[in-house]
């Protein structure tokens, strides 16, 4: 257990270093110059040099990367002219574009992305698992076939298509809802939820299709296992055989699948944010990539990597508590 955590932590560190190095490598390899974007079109050579120096772009890429790592661990100082600003660890630097600290940029947008994914997570888990169960227990009957059609439709529809269709129907045609605008939960809980209905639904359609499918196959597989036959042979009522023994076997693997799917969810959340114009992490990634805003992209990569590893670790730990046969190593 402790050994497992140590190993996980170790591989996390390696992973984060590799990922950020890749980001720096990519940005170095391409000829785009962020200074031109910052400085504007009418910049002359001298002005450009000043901007270069200010952004630290006049240093070799290895030095830039080293400062980035240094900032992460012990913090670093930025001097713009006479003033020196200290950026405490973990320091992700300042945006080339807006001069704002990257950490606070991310912190600002995190609630939006969390609202979107957490809400949708609840929705898709509940719908996916229940539809999957119904589908498995009614195998090859009409209900099962209808659910299978939903699954195929859901899997085949990218979020930006289903989202647009939802917008067309509920915003354009029926006019039940306005185009979503993000309202913080702390300010207006009702407005927060109302505005997130469509984004939640968008993510839920795709993800619940995935979950329905997994639950269905998991359930069918478990139902064909020997121990299910044992309990039937010992006269346990069917609802107990299914509710207690089959369900546990079918649902346990979903824990790790949620973690493996985490990357997919991040990407789909990003697309959903862009579609609905929600000011979340996804939007930030697209913007800063287009602006060659190196510190923001590096910071976001780091955060996403951290999130993925944490999600996987949490899933492993949870799995090991639920299924005692699993030995963490």
């Amino acid at each position, binding site marked *: 257990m402790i*050994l497992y955590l140590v*190993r996980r932590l170790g591989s996390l560190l390696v992973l984060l270093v590799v990922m950020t190095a890749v980001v720096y490598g990519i940005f170095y390899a391409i000829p785009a110059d962020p200074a031109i974007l910052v400085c504007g079109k009418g910049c002359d050579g001298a002005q450009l040099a000043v901007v270069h120096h200010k952004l630290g772009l006049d240093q070799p890429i290895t030095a830039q990367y080293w400062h980035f790592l240094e900032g992460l661990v012990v913090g670093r100082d930025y001097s713009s002219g006479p003033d020196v600003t200290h950026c405490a660890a973990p320091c992700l630097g300042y945006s080339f574009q807006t001069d704002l600290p990257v950490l606070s940029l991310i912190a600002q947008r995190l609630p939006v992305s969390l609202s979107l994914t957490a809400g949708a997570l609840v929705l898709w888990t509940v719908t996916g698992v229940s539809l999957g169960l119904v589908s498995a227990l009614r195998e090859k009957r009409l209900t099962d076939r209808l659910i299978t059609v939903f699954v195929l439709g859901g899997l085949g529809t990218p979020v930006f298509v289903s989202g647009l269709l939802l917008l067309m129907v509920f915003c354009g045609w029926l006019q039940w809802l306005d185009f979503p605008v993000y309202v913080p939960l702390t300010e207006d809980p009702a407005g927060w939820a109302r505005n997130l209905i469509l984004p939640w639904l968008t993510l839920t359609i795709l993800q619940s299709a995935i979950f329905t499918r997994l639950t269905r196959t998991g359930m069918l597989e478990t139902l064909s*296992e*020997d*121990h299910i*036959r*044992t*309990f*039937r*042979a*010992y*006269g*346990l*009522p*069917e609802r*107990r055989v299914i509710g*207690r*023994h089959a369900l*546990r*076997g079918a649902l*346990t693997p979903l824990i790790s699948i949620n973690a493996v799917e985490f990357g997919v969810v991040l990407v789909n959340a990003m697309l959903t944010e862009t579609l609905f114009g929600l000011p979340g992490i996804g939007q930030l990634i697209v913007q800063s990539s287009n602006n060659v805003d190196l510190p923001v992209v590096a910071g976001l990569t780091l955060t996403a990597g951290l999130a993925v590893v944490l999600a996987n670790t949490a899933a492993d730990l949870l799995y090991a508590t*639920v*299924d*005692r*046969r699993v*030995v963490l*190593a």
Partner: protein
Amino acid sequence: MTGNGADGNTVLSVRDLTVEFSSGGGVLRAVDGVSFDLAAGGALGVVGESGSGKSTTALALLGLHRHTDARVTGRILLGAEITDGTGGVDVNALDDEGVRRLRGRRIAMIFQDPLSALDPYYRIGDQIAEVYRTHSGAGRRAAWARAVEVLDRVGIPDAARRARARPHEFSGGMRQRALIAMALACEPEILVADEPTSALDVTVQAQILDLLDELRADTGMALLLVTHDLGVVSRSADEVLVMHRGRAVEQGPVREVLRAPARPYTRALLDAVPRLDAPRAARREPGDPLLTVTDLTREFRRPGRGLRRETTRAVDGVSLDVRRGETLGVVGESGSGKTTLVRMMVGLLAPTSGRISFEDRDVTGLPEKRLRSIRGDLQMVFQDPTSSLNPRRTVGDGIADPLRVRGVPAGEARQTARELMERVGLDPARHDRYPHEFSGGQRQRVGIARALSLRPKLLVCDEPVSALDVSTQAQILELLRDVQEDYGLTIVFVSHDLAVIRQVSDRVAVMRGGALVELADVDELYASPRHEYTRALLTAVPVLA
């Protein structure tokens, strides 16, 4: 030993039981008009080879074919009322709820693989208590107490504590005990045991069979024992029912049927069973050592990648000779290291330490390239005829491949392959067929032909007949004996089956926990085993009465 026998009351009466599976367009009749009676406290052995319908019959007794493709007809009467004239319950005529109430309470079942038969997620005590509560309506506390009680009854040491364990924390034999405990919980009249010991080692099998005998004597519970092993039937049943292709071929008291079978099928089946007391061919006089292993050890890393290297010793300091022209039997239970040992002999596994010499040449840990020069001399026949042939190559190609690898021209290799097929009793015209078109026994013949193609000096056979039915097994053993004569082979024969080993070997090596326990001439070893473990093994084997 057999049970006390019946007290005259019939608790189960099956008449004209037929089970049909509709598959594709046709109908497969797995059980065809089988009738039998089971007396209270009696033990009926249902015996047959694979596909005989014995397990299908067992499942039908509990109505376990309901809601599947199977169609069950006939009468399955249950209960002491059959004899007193008031009738009994017809399992086949009851509704689902009625059958459910019978299951576990009046008729219980145990299965072949006790690991998969229990729910991996729950404590064993809870699973037993759940069954007990379902039928008795007892409270949680009482049900748990009952679970501990029955676990203790089936010989689980420290039952109160072990009841909290999950199935994977139990050994194979303990799991089967736990399943028997579950069956005992509601004191059923009948216990149906479907190959209860087939997945277990012979010593553990003996313990489980003892337990079943004892429970039957104590509780008066009737036993229906489904097995492929005539020895097990002979040991634990009073009556026997021989099944073949869905039909009951012969039935009667065990002793009579086994001593004087009335039907040719039964007789042939009995003849095919290797016996510990059958006369055997005279022992060959072994020549000089062909292959010598000295202090051979092999370690494996444990699964799970820890920081420390944790290893287990699969083979631990084994030294022995294989002598020219002999058959050396290697016998042991699962995990004894016998397969690892012989795989090192033929160079499929490198030893961790120790020495192997072949024809006085040290061949230990030779690199693959140098090893090639002796590869042809050392060949192997494998256990699983499904996995030992490449499903994507024709059997002709499979047999000819070793020749082609050595640069024999394609035409000549093909010709040799056909001759070899003929030699092992296969139709050479089928050389361009694929393995799945052959039966298990035929595939094993292909495997032997392939091993012979390079005219080896040493042939290692790793459980070559374990996956086969007893009649096929006898034919393969006969083939091996024939080719040994023809080709002047030296054979190392690995098996868990002491009777088979006795039948084929000149000398026998007994292994346990990776170590060589005893090595002796076959007659000496079976007549007067010196090591205590060998004695234990020999007494555990169920003998045909």
